[in-house]
């Protein structure tokens, strides 16, 4: 009888009917890469899960920002990131489990997809989550971009995948701790039962052997996860196979940056010097490398400008010389 009750409770919990649900409409913002919701006024404690059905022609990362009654605008502290997969899929985001800043009254949402393709929100609602949506949210969070997508900062550190806002390692260490406690308790009971002398220091290596096996098994699971990341990054690099070095450089750089560099190489004498105005991050450093043996020097003989407004003062020193396209030029010292 108690088994039947427990089973019924479990089924009812899993199938828990969502009491609170509110449909949301997202609108594209003119000349901006993001979509914004209509104005809302929802209690964050009651409405904690955003369900988005998204149709995309490419996979990629997206961020969902929110605005509370205390905010004047969207900001970096209030966002969660997730992976959008190619095709039409539903995404469950139990936000308070991933970010503690889901507080107060929620006034609006903003979806920022970082995909070089088309995306469309088929439906969107904000609901009071249940066990089912929470499990899916945790699963999608684990397989999300954190710890999987290589970014510039990966060279310095590798994030771990998260589960309900915490590193998966937190859960792993708790598991290992309980295994350790379980093993040591079991060993003590067996020793006492067999009327042997209890020497805790003797028990440690015995327990250690089994704990090592547990660590190696969990390590293997973590490695399976890493191998899937390795496979994803390998798939992204398939495009580079069979290409020559210039084609590869064109692909790995953004936009037409590398063709512009080649244009500069063709037009600036190798034994001269250049200065640059090149955004965004690190492209100026790349230009210094790519253009060598033309040496980078402040106030050099040539000025390389790529998608950056330059100070009019510069026109006193330099004169326009070669044009790659609008916004990308080479200037020469007067």
């Amino acid at each position, binding site marked *: 009888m108690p088994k039947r009750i427990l089973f019924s409770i479990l089924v009812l919990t899993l199938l828990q009917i969502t009491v609170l649900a509110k449909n949301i409409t997202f609108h594209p913002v003119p000349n901006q890469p993001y979509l914004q919701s209509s104005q809302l006024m929802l209690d964050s404690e009651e409405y904690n899960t955003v369900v988005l059905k998204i149709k995309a022609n490419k996979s990629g990362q997206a961020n969902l920002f929110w605005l509370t009654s205390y905010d004047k605008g969207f900001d970096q502290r209030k966002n969660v990131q997730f992976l959008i997969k190619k095709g039409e899929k539903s995404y469950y985001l139990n936000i308070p489990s991933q970010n503690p800043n889901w507080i107060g009254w929620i006034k609006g949402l903003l979806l920022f997809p970082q995909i070089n393709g088309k995306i469309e929100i088929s439906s969107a609602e904000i609901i009071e989550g249940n066990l089912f949506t929470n499990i899916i949210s945790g699963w999608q969070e684990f397989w999300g971009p954190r710890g999987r997508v290589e970014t510039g900062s990966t060279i*310095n550190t*590798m994030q771990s995948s998260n589960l309900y806002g915490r*590193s998966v390692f937190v859960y792993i260490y708790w598991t290992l701790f309980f295994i350790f406690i379980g093993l040591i308790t079991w060993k003590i009971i067996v020793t006492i039962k067999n009327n042997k002398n209890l020497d805790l220091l003797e028990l440690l290596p015995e327990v250690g*052997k089994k704990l090592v096996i547990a660590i190696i098994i*969990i390590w293997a699971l*973590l490695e399976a996860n890493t191998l899937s990341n390795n496979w994803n990054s390998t798939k992204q*690099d398939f495009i580079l196979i069979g290409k020559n*070095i210039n084609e590869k*450089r064109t692909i*790995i750089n953004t936009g037409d940056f590398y063709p512009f560099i080649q244009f500069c190489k063709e037009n600036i004498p190798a034994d001269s010097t250049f200065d640059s105005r090149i955004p965004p991050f690190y492209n100026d450093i790349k230009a210094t490398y790519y253009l060598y043996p033309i040496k980078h020097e402040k106030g050099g003989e040539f000025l390389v400008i790529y998608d950056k407004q330059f100070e009019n003062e510069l026109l006193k020193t330099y004169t326009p010389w070669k044009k790659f396209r609008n916004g990308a030029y080479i200037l020469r010292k007067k």
Partner: protein
Amino acid sequence: MQILNTLIIILIPSIFGLFLLSLFMQKSANRFYFWEKLALAFPIGLGAIVIVMFLLTKLVKIPLTFFSITGSLFVTAAIIGLYLLKKKAFCINLAEIKKINKFDHQNMAWWEYSLAILLAFKVIYVYFASIVKPLIDVDAFLYYSIVAKGIFFEKTFNTPYLLKHIHDKPLLPYLSQGWAFIGMHTINDALFKILFPTLFLCLLVIFYSALRKYYTRRMSMIFTFLLSTLPFLVFHVATAYGDFTMSFYYGAATIYLLLFMKSFNASDKESAFSNLLISFVLLAFAVWTKRAGIVYAGTNIFVLLTYLTVNKNKITGSDLLHAAIPLFNFFILIIPMLLYGQFNILIVIIRSILGIGNGGASAAAPAKILPPNKAGIIFSIMAKKLFLYADWHLLWALFIVSLVLFYRRSLRSPLVFLLAIIFLDVLALFVQFGTVEMFRWLLDGTIFDRLTMAYIVIITYFCAEAIIPSLKDNSLAGGTRPSPKNKKGS
């Protein structure tokens, strides 16, 4: 043609390395596995090429071209070859080559085959990730690879423009990448990275061989597999930074230092001193790789001297002489680097350790005003980074388990000396992060993991040494153990 040129940048150091290795090992070459010798030949040859390039530029003052470098190597190899011919002591022989296909696969369980396949996958992955993608990492553009490109065009690194990019850093990463461009006869910033997965492969072979000399195939494979999976290490193999190279040279040098102690404890002195010589040659190349190399070298030398002092009853006058040769070689190899500017770094480091630094060099001078909780902050960031990030899987948990649950083995000689090295290396982190500049980098998360990587190979090796003997009565530790006289072909 490009493939051939790419292979040349691996083959030439490997062949030259074999000559040097033969010189170092002489009659004790049969104590080393065939594949282990090949795995040592490449990094030793690469380090030697860097020194040759340095001497050609600074001492002989001739341009660095393919012919000047390979010509110098040829002359040196010919002289060494004549000596080896006289001594009849080349490190590999025909009998070993004939045994290549006789791989020790008897009684291999399904999971051992799986481990072998996974190891192979990882190696293929790092080769693919390294050579398919051109350079993308900022420090490689800013420092190492632009100088390498400069060496290719200018045939020297000794120009004001290139020296500006070198700063006060040791030269191995710059010159080894320069060698790659020169060897390929072109600037291909994808293929030149083949140096690093090759070092990774060498590291796995060395690691496996070092374990296999004392333990079963199964356990050696498990721990080599664990090393091959460390995500941050694997990621860095595909970059053109100096951190993985540092990890390789320092890790391998320390493994051979422990092998020296193990052989010495077992009274196998011939083997012991060959291990010591190899250890200190690799350690010298660590000094050539990154500034921190000099700190790590100091640690290893200090621990070696402690070991010799503790074991003074076992040491004869001849042993001391044999121990002095590797140290002498080490100093000969690092003298050019010290004269080149690293001596200043050494002075600053010593001053900072003694607490009298003046903050003149960002690398090692302590901050004038230390916030009272600075050590606490370092410790807290350290704990978070080591345990909650994906860099090292569960290595640090395994390390703690090794220390606590296998304390008897961990605290026994010679493993306790490896533990001392790890302890001093971690302590060195605290000294380094005592500086204002380094502390800032700790807070913004840019450097801690890369510094930790230098001794991650040693931590893995320590875990293996502490755990494997303790599992002796467990079925997992079963399998065939090599007989001391029949080590080949494993």
